[in-house]
C-alpha cells in the first residue's frame, strides 16, 4: 500500500481540529488535516460567534477567557481578522425566577474567575440603552464580545497553508486502521472516499457531533449527544444595541455586528441528526426565539429576518469536554464536545497541541477515559 506519511493526521477541520493542526504544523510537525467538507463549515462556521462568559459553563470560564482573547487578537496570531470584537455583555432577567438565576449563575461564574457583577435595572439600561425597560436585574461583564463565525474557515485555511500543513477538504474518511506504518509498529492508516490512503504516526479526532462514530473506527465507545441549534440573522439595520445580551436561562444570545446585522441565537432546537445534519428549523421555536429577542431589544420589531440556519452542537454525557489521549489507543487523541466551544476553541487546540508536542499543558485537559462506556462502538460509514 502506498500513501503519504505524516507525523500527525487531524480528522475534522472545525475550530478544534484546525487549531490543533495549526499549532502542530507551526511547531514543525508534518501535519495533515482532513475533512469531508470544507474547513470550519459545520458548527465552527455557522455558530452565533458569541464570546460571552454569561453562557459558558462555570468550569470552563478560564478556558473561555483565554479563547475569547485569541479571537480578538486573531489578526496577530492567526493572521486574519475574524471579526473578533471586545464589547460589554449582560445576562438579563425579566421575572423573579430569572433574577434568582442571574444571582446564582453570576456567583458560580465569578468563583471561576469571570469578572461578572450583578447590577440594577437602571445601570443595565445605562449600559444598554436599547434594553426593554421591564428588565428587573442583570449580570454584567466588561469582558464579553463576538466574532463572525462565517469568516473562521477562510482565516484558518490561510493560516494552515502558511504553516505548511497539508489540507484535504472534500475528503471523507471511510475508516482508520491501526497499522504498523514503520518499524516501531505504531501509527494509523486512514482510508478516504477519494481513494487516497494517508498514513500518520499520530491521530487526532476532532469531529464534533460525529466524534462517536469516529471513535468507533478505533474501537472506542463514547456516547456523544447532538444538539440542533437554530440561528437567525436580520438584514443590516440601524444601530439598535451595543452589547452582547442574553437572558438568565441562556435561551437567548443577541448581538449587532459592525455591519448592522443582528444575530439571534440561544440554542432553540430544530430538527436534524448526525446522519442528515441540520434538516430544518421548527417555526414555533423560531417564533419563541424571535419573541424573546424582540422583548429584550424592542427596536428589533422593525428589523427583517434575512436568513435562518442550523448548527450542530456536541455534548458528552456529563456535558464537559473530552480533550486528551484516547484511552487504550497509543498515539490517538480526541478533542471536542466543548460547551461554548467556539469561544474557547482556539485555546483548546493550543492545549492539545502542547500535549501532543510533549509539553506541560498550561491548563488541565479533560480526560476522555471518564466517558468510555462498555457498549459496542458505533460502526458506520464516512463521517469525517
Amino acid at each position, binding site marked *: 500500500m502506498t500513501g503519504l506519511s505524516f507525523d500527525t493526521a487531524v480528522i475534522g477541520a472545525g475550530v478544534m481540529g484546525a487549531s490543533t493542526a495549526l499549532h502542530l504544523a507551526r511547531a514543525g510537525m508534518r501535519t495533515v488535516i482532513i475533512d469531508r467538507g470544507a474547513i470550519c463549515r459545520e458548527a465552527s462556521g455557522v455558530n452565533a460567534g458569541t464570546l460571552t462568559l454569561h453562557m459558558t*459553563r462555570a468550569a470552563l470560564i478560564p478556558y473561555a477567557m483565554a479563547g475569547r482573547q485569541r479571537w480578538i487578537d486573531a489578526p496577530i496570531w492567526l493572521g486574519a481578522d475574524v471579526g473578533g470584537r471586545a464589547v460589554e455583555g449582560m445576562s438579563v432577567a425579566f421575572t423573579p425566577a430569572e433574577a434568582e438565576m442571574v444571582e*446564582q449563575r453570576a456567583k458560580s461564574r465569578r468563583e471561576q474567575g469571570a469578572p461578572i457583577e450583578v447590577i440594577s435595572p437602571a445601570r443595565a439600561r445605562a449600559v444598554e440603552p436599547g434594553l426593554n425597560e421591564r428588565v428587573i436585574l442583570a449580570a454584567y461583564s466588561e469582558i464579553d464580545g463576538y466574532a463572525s463565525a462565517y469568516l473562521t474557515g477562510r482565516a484558518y485555511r490561510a493560516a494552515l497553508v502558511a504553516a505548511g500543513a497539508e489540507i484535504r477538504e472534500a475528503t471523507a474518511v471511510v475508516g482508520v486502521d491501526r497499522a504498523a506504518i514503520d518499524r516501531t509498529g505504531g501509527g494509523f492508516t486512514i482510508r478516504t472516499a477519494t481513494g487516497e490512503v494517508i498514513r500518520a504516526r499520530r491521530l487526532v479526532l476532532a469531529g464534533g457531533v460525529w466524534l462517536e462514530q469516529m471513535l468507533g473506527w478505533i474501537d472506542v465507545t463514547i456516547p456523544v449527544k447532538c444538539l440542533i441549534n437554530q440561528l437567525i440573522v436580520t438584514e443590516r439595520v440601524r444601530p439598535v444595541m451595543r452589547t452582547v445580551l442574553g437572558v438568565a*436561562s441562556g435561551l437567548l444570545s443577541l448581538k449587532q455586528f459592525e455591519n448592522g446585522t443582528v444575530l439571534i441565537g440561544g440554542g432553540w432546537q430544530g430538527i436534524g441528526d448526525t446522519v442528515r445534519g441540520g434538516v*430544518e428549523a421548527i*417555526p*414555533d421555536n423560531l*417564533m419563541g426565539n424571535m419573541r424573546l429577542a*424582540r*422583548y429584550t431589544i424592542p427596536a428589533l420589531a*422593525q428589523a427583517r429576518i434575512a436568513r435562518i440556519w442550523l448548527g450542530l452542537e456536541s455534548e458528552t454525557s456529563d456535558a464537559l469536554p473530552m480533550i486528551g489521549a484516547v484511552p487504550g489507543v497509543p498515539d490517538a487523541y480526541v478533542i471536542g464536545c466543548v460547551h461554548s466551544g467556539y469561544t474557547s476553541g482556539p485555546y483548546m487546540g493550543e492545549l492539545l497541541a502542547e500535549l501532543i508536542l510533549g509539553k506541560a499543558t498550561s491548563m488541565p485537559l479533560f480526560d476522555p477515559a471518564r466517558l468510555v462506556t462498555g457498549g459496542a462502538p458505533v460502526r458506520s460509514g464516512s463521517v469525517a
Partner: protein
Amino acid sequence: MTDAALMTNAADLLVIGAGPAGVGAATMAAEHGLDVVLIDENYAAGGQVYRPMPPGFARRGSPGPDAAIGDAQRELLARSPVRTAFGKLVWSVSQTFRVDAVGEDGPTHWTAPALIAATGATERVIPFPGWTEPGVIGLAAATALLKSQQMLPGRTTLVAGCGPLLLAVAAGILKAGGRVAAVVDLASPVDWMSTLPALASRPDLLARGVGWVTLLKRRGVPVLFRHAIIGVRRSAGGLAATIGPVDAARRPISGVLERELSIDCVAVGHGLVPGTEISRIFRARHRFEHSLGGWIAERDRTGRTSVGGLYVAGDSGGILGAAAAFQQGRMTGLAAARDRGRIDPATFDRLVTPIERSRARNERFGRAMSGLMAAHLGQAAAIAPETIICRCEDVTRAELDAAIDEGAATVDQLKAWTRCGMGPCQGRMCGDTAGALMALRVGDRESAGQFTGRPPLRPIPIDLLTGTYDYADIPIPGPAPL
C-alpha cells in the same frame, strides 16, 4: 368558499404561487376532488406575466392579450372551489409540508400531505459597471411598471439584454408614449431566425412579435444586434450608457465601435433564472440545465420531484414560459389528484394526454425563447474586476476571484468568505453570476454548486412574525446547564 373553510388550516394540497402554473395546478387538483389552498404574496392571481391591476387601478383601453389571459385564469380560479390566500408572504416550508406565512393580519400556517411549488423565476442581470445606479432596472421590472401600473420606467429608455422581453418592453414603452433610445440585443439576427420553426408552433405569439418589430421600425428605434452595454454612469441629464459590439461568446470586442447614449433609464435583462428556493430547502435533487435557465429540481413530466409529495410546476422548474407553465401546472394538479388517490391511473392517462399535447406545443415555443435568454460564459468572463456582483453587500468580482484563489471551492464557501449572497435579496440577484464565475475556475456549474436553500423565503419583519404578546406567552424551554 366560506370563511369557515378558510379557517381550517389542514388541506389536501398546498400550492405556492398563483401565476399560470399555480392557477393551473390548483384548479385542476380541486376539480378532481382535492381540498386545495393556493397561496400568493400578491393581491390576486396572475403572477408576473398575467399580472393583475392593483386595487384601485383601472385599465386604460382594451386589455392586451396577456391581460385577457390573466382575466380568464382569475375567472377560472374564482369559479373553482380552490381556497385562496392572497397577500400572504410564505416564509417557511417544512419537510412535513407545513407552510408558514405572514400577512397584514399576522402569522398563519397550513398543512397538507402534498405541496406544489409554482414560484416562477427571477430575472438575471449580468453585472456591468454602473448596473447598480438608480434608473437601471430589469426588463421584468419595466414590464411590471407598464403592465400593472401603466407607468413609463423613464422618459428615454435604453432597452438592453436578450430574449423576447426586449421587444415587449420596447414596444410597451412606445405604446405608452415613452421614448426608446435603442434596443441593444446580445443575439444576432441569425439567432432569432433559428427560432422561427419553433415560433411557428404559436402563430399568435409570433404575430405579436412581428407587430412589436414593425412598431420599432416605424418609430425609427435603432435595434443593435450582437451589442451589449459596456457601462453606465450618471451624467448631467440622467444616465450615460456606453454600448458596443460583442463577439459570438457575448464578450465585448474592446474599444471597437463603442458609442454613448444619453438616457434617463436603462431596462436590462439577460434571461430568467428558475426560482428554486422551495425545492432547495426540501433538498430535492437538482441539476444544472443551461438551456432552461440554470439549476432546476429534477422532475418527471408531471412535476414530481425526488421528494415524495413535493411537486414543482412552471418556470420554477425550468424556463419554458407562461403558456407552457399553465399546461404543466394542470398536469401537475392532475398528478397530485392521482397520487392522492382521487383519480385512477386510467383516468389520469386519458385526461393528461390532451393537456400534454398542448403543453408540448407551448414548450417548443418556450424552449426557443429560453435558448435566446440562456447565459453565455463569455458574459461572466468579461465582467471587469471592479464591478459589483453582490449589490446587497457590495462584493466585487475582484473580491470573489481573490476568495476563489485562496481556496473557496463552492458558492456556499464563497458566500461565507465574502458575504456575497448574504443580503436581503438572499442571493437571488447574485447567485447565478457567482456560480458562473466559480465555474470559470472549477470547470463547471455542478462543481461550483448552488447556494443552499435557507428560510425565510422572503425577508420578514420581526413584528409581523411575532405579533402582540406578553413575556409569559413565550414558551421558553428549560435553562441551559450551568
